[in-house]
């Protein structure tokens, strides 16, 4: 298959976008950094459709630094499906996937990817890369698609027992071998200095982002959760380029200004909420309702945590391996519990809201343990909203708002607010 098919794929998609495009983002998200972020993601997205780009499909957590160092465009199908959902394009895509045999009980991100591939909306990949992090479904789907496209599939096996002595070298070697093979196959130069530079950029960006996270501990919180949560997608995808450093720096400066002036994201912040998992991508009214109507600001999202230590550019592969192994959502849940505990304390959390994505066994199964072991003893209530991030067919605005109302009433009573 030659890559000029990408033009056709883009035209397919553009045709669909023109029919159904509906701007979905809230008018309250006014930070300059957010605009820069959209612009960067848009740029990478368009470049993935160009005939002469070398495109690597990556699942979450595949280190983009390696790809940028090889001048390869990383393409995150899961993130793109979220973008489709934001534009209400997913009804058709999901239906196509289900006709093909994908069950409605599987994760809709992956169903969306299958459907998009059948309808030829996705840019043809040159490589597909997945890790063992989080769910196996994404690796399974990528492998299956690699056969369809007849392209190489790379799998980075990150062992569950991350603390074992062999783990770092084991993962580092896989990353290095992968980079060498990709370089060879795509006729790119395997330039270790470029990788070191990418790691330096990555460090600078994550340093600013960690500072941003610290600013959000401030009372009142300077940033709306609804705006912040979409940084999580970027966080996984674009480390390693200078543009990312600019975005994180701008975000930091904007928030610092707000904190210095005592400006909060909403006037009269009443409650501080910790958000778990992702969000329904086809609606923004949920966050507006929680934050602006009920004044319950989402001060932090677990997905935005900078959990890794600064990487050593002189040991690029080992550092990237260590970053993968230190992902707290992976491995035994105790690490995650410790992180959640620290979030609850550092951000002065009043309540936790989790949007439990249907089809995600991995993230949803720990909720009861978090409730039992952390939140119960601190008397912090948690609301679990069962829903689907991508598939809006079962979403009921009224039902979700009822739950939120009841939850806010619980929080109000705890604080002794009237009503």
């Amino acid at each position, binding site marked *: 298959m030659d890559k000029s098919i990408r033009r056709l794929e883009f035209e397919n998609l553009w045709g669909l976008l023109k029919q159904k495009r509906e701007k979905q983002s809230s008018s309250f998200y006014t930070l300059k950094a957010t605009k820069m972020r959209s612009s960067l993601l848009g740029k990478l997205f368009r470049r993935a459709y160009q005939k002469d780009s070398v495109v690597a499909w990556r699942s979450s957590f595949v280190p983009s630094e390696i790809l940028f160092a090889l001048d390869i465009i990383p393409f995150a199908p899961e993130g793109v499906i979220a973008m489709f959902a934001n534009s209400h394009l997913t009804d058709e895509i999901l239906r196509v996937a289900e006709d093909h045999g994908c069950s409605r009980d599987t994760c809709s991100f992956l169903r969306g990817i299958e459907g998009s591939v059948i309808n030829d909306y996705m840019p043809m990949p040159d490589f597909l890369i997945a890790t063992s992090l989080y769910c196996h479904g994404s690796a399974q789907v990528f492998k299956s698609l690699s056969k369809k496209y007849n392209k190489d599939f790379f799998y980075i096996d990150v062992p569950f027992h991350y603390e074992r002595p062999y783990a770092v070298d084991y993962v580092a070697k896989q990353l290095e071998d992968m980079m060498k093979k990709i370089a060879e196959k795509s006729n790119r130069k395997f330039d270790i200095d470029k990788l070191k530079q990418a790691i330096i950029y990555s460090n600078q960006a994550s340093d600013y982002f960690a500072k941003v996270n610290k600013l959000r501990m401030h009372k009142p919180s300077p940033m709306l959760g609804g705006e912040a949560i979409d940084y999580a997608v970027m966080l996984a995808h674009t480390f390693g380029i200078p543009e990312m450093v600019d975005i994180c720096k701008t975000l930091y400066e904007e928030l610092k200004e707000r904190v210095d002036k005592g400006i909060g994201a909403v006037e009269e912040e009443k409650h501080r909420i910790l958000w778990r998992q992702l969000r329904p991508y086809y609606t923004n009214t949920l966050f507006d309702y929680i934050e602006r109507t009920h004044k319950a600001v989402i001060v932090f999202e677990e997905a935005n945590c900078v959990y890794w230590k600064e990487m050593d550019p002189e040991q690029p592969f080992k550092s990237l391996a260590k970053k993968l192994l230190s992902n707290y959502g992976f491995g035994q849940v105790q690490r995650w519990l410790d992180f959640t505990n620290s979030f609850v304390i550092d951000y002065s959390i009043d309540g936790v809201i989790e949007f439990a994505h249907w089809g995600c066994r991995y993230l949803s199964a720990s909720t*009861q343990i978090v409730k039992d072991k952390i939140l119960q003893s601190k008397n912090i*209530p*948690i609301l*679990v909203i*069962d829903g689907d991030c991508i598939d809006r067919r*079962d979403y*009921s605005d*009224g*039902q979700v708002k*009822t*739950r939120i*109302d*009841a939850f806010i*009433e*619980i929080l109000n*009573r705890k604080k002794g607010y*009237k*009503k």
Partner: protein
Amino acid sequence: MIFAGIDIGSVSSETVIIDKNKKILSYDVVRTGSNSKKAAEKSIQAALNKANISFEDITNLIATGYGRKIVPFKSEEISEISCHARGAHFLFPNTRTVIDIGGQDSKAIRLNENGEAVDFNMNDKCAAGTGRFLEEMAKALDTSVEHLGKLSLRSKKSLVISSMCTVFAESEVVSLLAENETREDIAKALHNAIADRVLSLAHKVRLVNAVTLTGGVGKNIGVVDALKSKLPGMTINIPEEPQIVGALGAALIALDSANINA
């Protein structure tokens, strides 16, 4: 001073009117039908007539339930969670868990010692575990829901029916009948299935003694019996009129908030 609470559910709407001493002056239950606004107006009027008072006499009115936002004459709206908790705790001060099984939804609420809701879990997506489940099953067995409950108490043999999905369960009933199982045994299995479904909601909020049942299905002896057998050693309170507990709670909250303002 008169206070009222109105609970607009997807199947039925209830109004409760109380005086300042928390005595119930009157209550009414109507089917919601397709027009929630009309149902609200009908319900409040019927309750006012029964109490022989007029609308202007009401000091404070709180609306709750699925249709609470469109009730035109409310002072305020409160979620059904808080209302059910308040109502159940008022009737039975030992209540620490409320299990509400309505026509089209079910919920479990855990209360603290002050009778305030601290955790809850709702099922409003799926008919299994709601009154609708029993209605469909009663149809499949060619009888009424009340009679279904009575049948279940006469069961001799233990069968198992899926508690995950109403549609699945219905075809299981048909097959069991074809295999010559008795209606009594099938009825018992159905009541166990609805009890299991509801209890899995309750376990998620860590159900604690004592339990109060609310909602229309609380009148069903088959369900009560099944729940009792699955919660040995626990006290299960059944209000005389389990359907009005939400509206009663709303009326009580109306009284509370008026007193705060006074």
